[in-house]
């Protein structure tokens, strides 16, 4: 493999890599705007200019040495762009030499000539590459005092993306994304010189299912989200790593929360699963239900009256109801949206506490949602986990399809629904819930199913719990709580915003409403204890530890490993796939 030297650091790099790839895979930084690891190389921003040289050789081929015995380096007369220069054996790269620094400062000055510097009203401020580089690589003042060029502002590109031509630095990332990843080639540069701007093809709309990825991709604030626009500044939000529950792909996401309310979701790099992207559908539809229409506490409905209960009273009530029926008169319905932990608790509850064989969960399939990039036909984030854990009817037991009939003939009298909106799935099941003598529901939102419950327990949504999902590639991935509930705090740390770190409990704008809800395994454990079991889990991790000890597919997995390896494929707990090297991302420094 070629050996190159970047800023005095010797690196062994596979042939064919470019200098910038070699640098980033080894934790060195070279400033860049247009280069992105997942897109083709355009080489038009000129920010990654570096000084490249090779050892000087004598006529006999031996390297020329200086008086200290070091090889003499002959630098090329012109600077090279690191993103398009492949490495070669013996290459020496300088990114901080006076010539390279002068080039970086010149490029920054050039880009800032027509950039409006409206950071205070720009949504990108705080995570803007241009802003960051202005601190690191620019001289900090401008010699330009003419009028800046005016270009179209607030151009609506599509249903989700809005374009500001003045902020654009013409890196062409969005154009390449549209052509190469989203495969909707409707963007192009128009005009010449300093009037260059990006335009949509006449009559076209930038409305592909992945269009919003250009918002993160854009190194400046030229492309902003119509959904999020101006809702918060970047530094006001706490970002928590999580998994999108929109489909079985399990795209890695960051949840942006301010005042205990989710304001946006954005993709998080995981080269095994979603690369750098996520779909617009996931981004736009998978947070609203966390913020609104929530069930709180426990509710008892008897003969048309509703009554709020304390947790303990509700558990007593449920335990009493469960004792009244024979095991095979009880049907348990799980959900492909529950975490592995909750499903494990449910499976254990069915097998060892209720001893009922009737346990099933509905599939949620949407062939129109599927595409070849990320979106899956299976809209449940954890179908694989549910099947692996054994959420399926025992041989000869009642399945979900048979349920309406069995309820009508009185063979199933109690239906226990855990985190699933079965009534919303089919009218037959909705009728079954109405006809059943007793319906117990765990729900996070007021769904059709929750409305038909006799006893209703509030559960957490994916954003409030700690747990794991198993995606369609059989990869187990970790979710951390992003929203605090009445009983569960979030993890404190550097990713928390200043308001979340230092706000007091009585500040209106730091502590939004905390909902009274619990994770499903907590409910099930409390009920199981009343029914004579001695379950003793104190946190989700305890449940996962038990699960990984008992199921061979999960063997060797721990939360810590899942976090380090960005998820582990089932059965590979003892030798997880290594994380591809790319050690340069922070919330501020995007690729």
């Amino acid at each position, binding site marked *: 493999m070629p050996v190159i030297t970047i800023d005095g650091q010797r690196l062994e790099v596979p042939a064919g890599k470019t200098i910038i790839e070699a640098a980033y895979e080894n934790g060195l930084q070279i400033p860049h705007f247009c280069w992105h690891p997942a897109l083709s190389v355009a080489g038009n921003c000129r920010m990654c200019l570096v000084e490249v040289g090779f050892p000087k050789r004598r006529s006999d081929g031996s390297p020329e040495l200086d008086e200290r015995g070091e090889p003499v380096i002959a630098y090329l007369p012109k600077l090279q762009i690191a993103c398009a220069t492949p490495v070669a054996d013996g290459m020496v790269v300088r990114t901080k030499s006076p010539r390279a620094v002068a080039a970086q400062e010149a490029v920054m000055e050039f880009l800032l000539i027509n950039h409006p510097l409206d950071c*205070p*009203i720009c949504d990108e401020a705080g995570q803007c590459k241009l802003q960051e580089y202005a601190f690191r690589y620019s001289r900090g003042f401008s010699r330009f005092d003419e009028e800046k060029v005016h270009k179209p502002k*607030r151009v609506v590109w599509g249903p989700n993306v809005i374009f500001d031509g003045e902020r654009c630095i013409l890196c062409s990332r969005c154009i390449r994304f549209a052509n190469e990843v989203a495969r909707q080639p409707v963007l192009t540069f128009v005009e010449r010189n300093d009037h260059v701007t990006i335009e949509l093809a006449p009559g076209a709309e930038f409305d592909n299912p992945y269009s919003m990825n250009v918002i993160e991709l854009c190194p400046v604030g030229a492309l902003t989200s119509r959904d999020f*626009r*101006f*809702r*918060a*500044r970047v*530094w*006001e939000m706490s970002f928590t790593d999580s998994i999108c529950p929109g489909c079985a792909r399990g795209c890695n996401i960051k949840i942006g929360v301010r005042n205990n309310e989710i304001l946006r979701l954005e993709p998080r790099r995981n080269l095994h699963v979603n690369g750098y992207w996520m779909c617009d559908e996931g981004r736009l539809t998978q947070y609203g239900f966390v913020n609104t229409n929530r069930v709180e506490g426990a509710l008892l409905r008897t003969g048309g009256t509703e009554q709020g209960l304390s947790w303990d009273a509700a558990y007593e009530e449920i335990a009493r109801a469960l004792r009244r029926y024979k095991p095979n008169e009880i049907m348990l319905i799980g959900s492909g949206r529950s975490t592995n932990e909750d499903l494990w608790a449910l499976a254990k509850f069915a097998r060892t506490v209720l001893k009922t064989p009737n346990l099933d969960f509905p599939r949620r399939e949407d062939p129109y949602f599927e595409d070849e990039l990320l979106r899956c036909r299976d809209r449940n984030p954890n179908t694989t986990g549910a099947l692996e854990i054994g959420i399926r009817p025992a041989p000869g037991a009642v399945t979900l399809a048979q349920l309406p009939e069995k309820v009508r003939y009185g063979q199933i009298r109690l239906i226990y629904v855990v985190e699933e909106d079965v009534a919303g799935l089919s009218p037959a099941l909705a009728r079954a819930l109405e006809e059943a003598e007793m319906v117990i529901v765990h729900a996070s939102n007021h769904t059709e199913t929750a409305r038909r419950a006799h006893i209703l327990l509030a559960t957490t949504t994916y954003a409030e719990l700690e747990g794991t999902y198993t995606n369609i590639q059989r990869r187990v991935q970790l979710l951390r709580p992003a929203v605090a509930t009445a009983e569960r705090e979030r993890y404190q740390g550097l990713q928390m915003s*200043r*308001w979340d770190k*230092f*706000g007091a409990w009585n*500040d*209106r*704008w*730091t502590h939004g409403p905390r909902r009274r809800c619990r994770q499903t395994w907590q409910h099930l454990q409390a009920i199981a204890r009343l029914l004579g079991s001695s379950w003793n889990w104190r946190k989700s991790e305890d449940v996962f530890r038990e699960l990984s000890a008992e199921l061979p597919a999960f063997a060797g997995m721990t939360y810590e490993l899942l976090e380090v390896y960005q998820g582990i494929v089932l059965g590979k707990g003892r030798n997880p796939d290594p994380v591809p090297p790319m050690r340069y991302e922070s919330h501020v420094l995007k690729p």
Partner: protein
Amino acid sequence: MNITENTEAQRLSFWERLYLPEIVRGLSITLRQMFKPKFTRQYPEERWEPLGSYRGRPVLVLDEDGERCVACGLCSRVCPALAIEVQAGETEREKERYPVKFEINMLRCIYCGFCEEVCPEEAIVMSKDYELVFEEREAAILDKEQLLVPIAQLQDRLEFLRRYK
């Protein structure tokens, strides 16, 4: 050191120990002050007008085309006491955004003036208002309507900022 060496009786001179001459001296100082000009202000009736450099209650500037604030949130970010909350919204005006909500918790405010210093629009300034009394905690959280002050009333401060900021 022996405590008995430094008693009050030992420190006082003979005349001081006589007591009465000292009383007379004190009374004479009081008497002299009574005939000198008074500095005390009859506060509620007689008000003090601070100079432009005075940092009183922070307020939002309201000029001819409405509020200047673009809800950038920098005041909120810089505030050492976490006193300010801003929620931005979109407008059709050229500046694109405006504050939907702008609240300052006066119980938290420490009158440091950082918000004024960081403001890119000169939209939040420290006023001369020093009379801040609240009967309940909720009332101490001032909203946008309470904070907006016409620019005519803030000329002294804006002049001061232009000159010395």
